[in-house]
């Protein structure tokens, strides 16, 4: 079945197909229409779920944590200030090893108030222990929700995951979305079967005090889980491609990088436009390719290292920046390569921040700038693209 859906509707469809048993969410632009769509699904019986109307995002995350700990599959969604308000509980969800999946719709942080696409909100949650999938299309939103549950609930992973879509560009824009058959999804994603849960017949404490003699081991196990997730994501996307015919290539997707001297790395919706820009520059004879950072946590260091060996320049486009020194994606890409023999020039492009349209023209200028780095060497490490009155 094919439907025309916004990114947020597609998100809700993913939740429905995953047969989520408890939803708790609180509205915030641009996430709101997910919450509305799910309320509608629940109200007309299309989705058999308990929908908790919480009084804040902090409570939304707390409620799904408690529900998931009671042994059911849960979902929530948020953006920006709502996600920031959840921060404490994001740590809790991951530390408690609960495979919660959430829809995160990227939006800038205030002040100044701004409701448009910007990755700062999710990048700020990088260190909470959640897996992060940055998606490119409405189809990928739905597919990623289903895949994320499968990865998260793997016994050697048991970590929460965010399916991350750009505000408005996906959340409120209609595209054709292929809806997979429920039976196939049920086969791919069997009911949640937690190894432990709150059970009066087997009373245990979940999340109690752990002294310094063992706390580190709990964190080490999370480290191992992120490592396991790397492998699981590759397997799960492959299995998904075999069943449903859509391949997202694991953690990183490469586009026309075979013989490239210069690659541009980015995440989210800018990737679709960038594909066209690569085609154009390729037709002019430039050896340029594109790397889609689909998964940012766990960080795909092996894939990045392998690419770095092949190229002379890596341009990393961040739709956010970490105050003080460049973008987080840039810093991590650069760090991943340091202990290898590869020494491509690396340049950071801060682009589309606060929802500024990332146009084909803007990307073309950026890519040409990276090509120049190849010829003339690195001029500056961090460049703000399309800055008004700027350089």
């Amino acid at each position, binding site marked *: 079945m094919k439907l025309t859906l916004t990114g947020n509707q597609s998100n809700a469809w993913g939740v429905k197909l995953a047969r989520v048993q*408890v939803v708790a969410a609180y509205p915030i632009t641009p996430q709101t229409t997910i919450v509305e769509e799910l309320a509608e699904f629940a109200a007309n019986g299309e989705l058999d779920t308990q929908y*908790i109307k919480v009084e*804040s995002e902090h*409570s939304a995350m*707390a409620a799904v944590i*408690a529900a998931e700990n009671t042994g059911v599959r849960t979902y929530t969604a948020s953006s920006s200030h709502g996600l920031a308000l959840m921060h404490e509980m994001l740590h809790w969800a991951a530390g408690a090893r609960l495979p919660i999946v959430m829809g995160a719709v990227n939006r800038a942080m205030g002040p100044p108030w701004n409701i448009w696409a910007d990755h700062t909100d999710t990048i700020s949650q990088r260190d909470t222990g959640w897996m992060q999938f940055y998606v490119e299309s409405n189809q990928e939103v739905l597919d990623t929700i289903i895949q994320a549950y499968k990865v998260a609930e793997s016994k050697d992973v048991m970590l929460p995951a965010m399916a991350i879509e750009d505000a408005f560009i996906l959340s409120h824009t209609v595209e054709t979305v292929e809806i997979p058959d429920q039976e196939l999804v049920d086969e791919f994603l069997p009911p949640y079967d937690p190894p432990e849960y*709150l059970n*009066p017949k087997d009373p245990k404490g979940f999340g109690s*005090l752990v*002294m310094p003699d063992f706390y580190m081991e709990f964190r080490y196990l999370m480290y191992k889980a992120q490592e396991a997730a790397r492998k699981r994501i590759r397997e799960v996307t492959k299995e998904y491609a075999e069943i449903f015919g859509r391949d997202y290539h694991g953690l990183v997707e490469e586009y026309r990088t075979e013989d490239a001297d210069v690659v541009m790395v980015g995440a989210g919706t800018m990737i679709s436009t960038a594909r066209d820009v690569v085609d154009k520059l390729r037709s002019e004879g430039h050896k340029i390719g594109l790397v889609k950072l689909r998964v940012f946590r766990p960080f795909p260091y092996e894939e990045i290292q392998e690419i770095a060996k092949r190229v002379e320049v890596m341009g990393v486009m961040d739709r956010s920046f970490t105050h003080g020194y460049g973008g987080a994606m840039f810093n991590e890409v650069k760090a991943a390569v340091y202990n290898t023999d590869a020494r491509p020039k690396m340049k950071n492009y801060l682009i589309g921040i606060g929802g500024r349209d990332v146009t084909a023209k803007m990307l073309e200028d950026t890519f040409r700038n990276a090509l120049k780095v190849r010829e003339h060497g690195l001029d500056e490490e961090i460049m703000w693209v399309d800055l008004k009155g700027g350089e």
Partner: protein
Amino acid sequence: MVKTTVPRDEYMMQGHVACQGCGATIAMRYVLKALGDNTIMTIPACCWAVIPGVWPQHSLKVPLLYTAFEVTGAALSGIEAALKAKGQDDEINVLGFAGDGGTADIGLQALSGMAERGTNALYVMYDNEAYMNTGIQRSGSTPFGAWTTTTPVGKKKEWKTEFKKSVAEIMVAHRIPYVATASIAFPEDLYAKVQKAKSIKGPKFIQIFSSCPTGWKHSPDITVEVARKAVLSHMFPLYEVENGVYKISQKPKPIPVKEYLKLQGRFRYLDEEAIEKIQEHVDREWELLLKKEEFTQSL
């Protein structure tokens, strides 16, 4: 006052790590006796987040979800929703057990949300009248005149200068089916109230007065006496509100509040003027409670 038999069954085992003479452990013991082991409990940051024991030990015979300081109400809604999804919501009791700070202050929003959402769960606020876990700082439930580490009594006599916030009355305003106050000094009454709460569907709230020798500066062997005198002096009246109808559990001929205050180091700085101010406040609150009982009787 009810007379009832409290069962011998214990759901709190030896090996917990509470201070000597801790009133909050008595509260837990009787609450669990009344609810039984077919219960899922959640506890936020507070003394009781430490008392059950350090991992991998667990001194309670019910499953326990530890959670963050301000989320008890939300956690209760989450557990309830999951039990509904599994079709077990009629079989299993859901209990939140939180301190006064986690209830009156930082957790008030989630508690209000849970009450408004109609979550079928019992929320117990064990009231030791300060943030004890972090070392005796004032809370919204600390009474006027008390010394705490954030209301220290120096030259300027800066004990707590505000009266105690009544969370029970805040919960009455939510129009939930059952609100009660109880005390560790009156275990039969406490037991009966938890049993009643268990029989009612919807959000229930019980505030249990739980004296704290460490924070109140009294000797651990008079924990129960202190709690009893709080009731006898009308400092902490015992009552229940069922569907808006007030019923005072006991109407003792009051002893002067001074008899209660003088047992505790936290009040030892108070001068006659301050004690008089407390007495007037307590008398007025008691009058108000009697009137509420009278006014709501016809409902």
